[in-house]
C-alpha cells in the first residue's frame, strides 16, 4: 500500500513568489473552511487510505508502469517507461483529483459540485463522481470548447450533469473558471468548486498536487521494482500542471532525476498561437483567477488568447508550484509543436499500441528528443496522462482522413 505523499507544502499558500489567494471577500470563509478541511484530511492517514482504496476499487489504481520496448528499440537510448494514467476510469489522471476532492466535499457536507473544464476530461470525471455519490453537478465550459469537445459534453449530460456553455471572453477554459468562481460566490454554502488542476487560489494547488502525488509515488516505487534504479528524467505535459506535479512529486527529493515539463508550442512560440508560458519569453508574472503565477498577458495585464491542438493544454496560467520549481531550477520546461505532437502520437500508436491523449503526447515529443542522449543503462519515464480516444475528431481532422469525413457526413444525415 502506497503511503500518502508528503505534499508540496506551500508557505502560507506561496511557492516562492507564486501562489497566494486573491479572491472576492465573499469566498473568504469558504476558503478558510476548505483549507481547514483539507489540512485535517491531510493529517489523517485514514483519509488517504480511503482515497487510495476508493481509487483502487473504482478506477485503475495503481496504474501500471509499462516498459515501452518498441519505442526503446526505436530510439536506441534510454529504456523508456510509460506511466499509464490513461487506464484510469474516465480515461485520464483527472479522476484522481476529482475523487479526492469529492470525498473531501462529502466530509464538508456539500451537496453540489461545480467545475470548469476545457478539454472536457475534468468535466467528465467530475460528472462521473457526482453521479456516483449522488451530488448535484454543474460544469462550466467555454462555448468554443463545447463545440470542439462535444462528445465529452454529451457524456457529462448523460451522467446527469448540467453543462453551461460560457460565452464570455475567449470562450475557453479561463472563462469557464471565472464563471465557476462566480457561481461559487453565490452558492458557497451548498457547493464545492472542484478545480481541475493545480492552479487557483490556495489551497487548490497544494491540494490538487497532493491528490495527484499518487502518480509519482506509484511511479517511483514501480521503477525501483522494475529496474532497481531511479530514472534519469521524467516527462509530463503541462496544462494547468496537475499531472506534471503529480508525477514530479515522487522524484522531487531525488535531485539527480530531471523533471521535464512540456508545454504546448502550438504553431510556434514566435506566433501568437501557443500556450508556452514557461518555455517561451512571452509570459510574465501576474495575478488572475485567484492566484499569482506566470500568465500570457499584455503589458496592461489583460490575458491573451492561447492555442494548442490539445484543448487541455490551452490555458493562460500555470500551476504556481511549477512556476516556482522552474524558477529555482529544479524543473526544466520545453515545448512541443502541434505537428510534432501528431508525429509522436502516430509513432506511439504503431510501436506500442498506446493511444496517448494529445495532451500527453506533448510529453512524449520531448522524451523522444532526449531518449537517444542516454544509454541502455538509463531509464526515463513519460506520463501518459490520458487516452486519446477523446481526440478522434481532432486527430482525424488533422490527418485529413478522407473516410472519416465521409463517415461524419453520413452519420450527420442519418442522425
Amino acid at each position, binding site marked *: 500500500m502506497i503511503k500518502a505523499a508528503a505534499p508540496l507544502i506551500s508557505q502560507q499558500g506561496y511557492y516562492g513568489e507564486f501562489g497566494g489567494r486573491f479572491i472576492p*471577500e465573499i469566498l*473568504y470563509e469558504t476558503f478558510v473552511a476548505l483549507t481547514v478541511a483539507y489540512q485535517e484530511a491531510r493529517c489523517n492517514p485514514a483519509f488517504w487510505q480511503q482515497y487510495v482504496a476508493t481509487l483502487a476499487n473504482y478506477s485503475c489504481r495503481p496504474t501500471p508502469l509499462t516498459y515501452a520496448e518498441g519505442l526503446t528499440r526505436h530510439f536506441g537510448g534510454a529504456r523508456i517507461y510509460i506511466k499509464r494514467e490513461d487506464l484510469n476510469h474516465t480515461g485520464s489522471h483527472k479522476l484522481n483529483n476529482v475523487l479526492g476532492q469529492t470525498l473531501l466535499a462529502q466530509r464538508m457536507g456539500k451537496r453540489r459540485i461545480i467545475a470548469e473544464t476545457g478539454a472536457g476530461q475534468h468535466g467528465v470525471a467530475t460528472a462521473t463522481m457526482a453521479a456516483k455519490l449522488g451530488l448535484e453537478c454543474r460544469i462550466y465550459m467555454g462555448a468554443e470548447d463545447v463545440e470542439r469537445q462535444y462528445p465529452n459534453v454529451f457524456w457529462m449530460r448523460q451522467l446527469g450533469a448540467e453543462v453551461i456553455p460560457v460565452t464570455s471572453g475567449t470562450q475557453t477554459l479561463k472563462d469557464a473558471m471565472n464563471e465557476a468562481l*462566480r457561481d461559487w460566490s453565490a452558492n458557497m454554502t451548498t457547493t464545492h468548486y472542484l478545480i481541475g488542476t493545480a492552479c487557483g487560489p490556495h489551497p487548490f494547488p497544494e491540494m490538487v498536487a497532493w491528490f495527484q502525488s499518487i502518480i509519482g509515488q506509484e511511479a517511483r516505487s514501480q521503477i525501483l521494482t522494475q529496474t532497481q534504479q531511479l530514472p534519469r528524467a521524467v516527462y509530463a505535459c503541462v496544462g494547468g500542471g496537475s499531472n506534471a506535479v503529480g508525477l514530479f512529486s515522487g522524484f522531487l527529493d531525488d535531485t539527480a532525476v530531471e523533471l521535464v515539463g512540456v508545454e504546448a508550442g502550438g504553431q510556434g512560440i514566435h506566433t501568437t498561437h501557443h500556450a508556452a508560458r514557461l518555455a517561451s519569453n512571452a509570459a510574465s508574472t501576474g495575478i488572475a483567477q485567484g492566484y499569482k503565477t506566470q500568465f500570457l498577458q499584455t503589458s496592461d495585464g489583460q*490575458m491573451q488568447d492561447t492555442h494548442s491542438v490539445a484543448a487541455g493544454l490551452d490555458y493562460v496560467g500555470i500551476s504556481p508550484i511549477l512556476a516556482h520549481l522552474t524558477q529555482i531550477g529544479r524543473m526544466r520546461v520545453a515545448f512541443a509543436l502541434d505537428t510534432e505532437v501528431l508525429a509522436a502520437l502516430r509513432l506511439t500508436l504503431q510501436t506500442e499500441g498506446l493511444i496517448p491523449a494529445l495532451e500527453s503526447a506533448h510529453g512524449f515529443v520531448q522524451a523522444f528528443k532526449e531518449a537517444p542522449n542516454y544509454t541502455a543503462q538509463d531509464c526515463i519515464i513519460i506520463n501518459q496522462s490520458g487516452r486519446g480516444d477523446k481526440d478522434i475528431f481532432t486527430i482525424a481532422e488533422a490527418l485529413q482522413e478522407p473516410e472519416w469525413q465521409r463517415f461524419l457526413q453520413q452519420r450527420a444525415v442519418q442522425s
Partner: protein
Amino acid sequence: MHLDQFIHQQRQQKDILLMSHTVLGYPAWEDNRKAIAAMVQAGVELIELQFPFSEPIADGPILLAANHGAIQTGTSIQDCFHFAAEITQRYPQTRFVIMTYVNILFKYGIRNFVTTAAQSGIAGCIIPDLPPEQAAAYITICREQSLATIFLVTPENSLQRIQQIIDYTSGLIYCVARPGVTGQQTLFSTQLHQYLYRVHAMTSLPIAVGFGIQSADDVQDLIGSADIATVGTYAVQYYCEHGADALQRLMQGLRTG
C-alpha cells in the same frame, strides 16, 4: 480632504449618499463622459471608475461584458488614467474612486499605479480580488498618497474577519449586500440590517452598501443603516438601454421617491 471626511460632511445634509459606476471605455469614452455628467447632475456624490480587466471574477454578466467590450475597443490603463484626470478636474465636487482588479495594479506596478491614481485626482480604490492580508504594499503606498483603501465586507464574514478588514480600510467600508457577483437583484431583509448594524457597531467608517440596489425603495430601506447606497450594474445597464437623460432621472428619483 480625505474621503471619509468628505462623506461625513455630505451626510450632514443628506440622509444617504449615492455612489454609482461606469466602466471606462465602454461603450465609448464619450458615453463615460455623458453618463458621469448625468450622474453628477443628478447629485450623485461618488462615482466608481472601473478600469477594465479581462478576468473580472467579481462581476456579473453585464459588467463582465462591459469589461470585455472596453478591452476590445482598445482601452488601455494609460487611457483610463488620462480620463480620470480629466473627469476629476471637471467635477471637483464629486469623488471618484477606481474599481479594478489586482492584476492591473500589479502589472502597472503598485507604487506607480497608486501614485498615478493620486495624481489623477482619485480618492480611493476598490480592488475586489485583493484581500487585505495580501495587500501590505498597496496599503502602505495608498496611505502615503492619501488614497482610501476601500475593502469589502460580506454577510458571510465572521466578526473577527470584519474587524480585520476594517483595520485595513480607509475612506469607507463597502458592505456587500449578499453572496454572489455584481448585477443580480438583492432581497432586502432583516438579516441585512442586522449585518449592517454589526459592522456599524465596529467602526466609525462610513458604510456603503452595494450589489443589486436598483430602486428608490431599496435606497429608502438603507437610510439609517448605511451612509451610501451604491448603484453600479443597474446604472451601467440603464445608461446603455435608455441614455444619459433617463439615467439622470433614475438617479434623481432614487432619493426623492
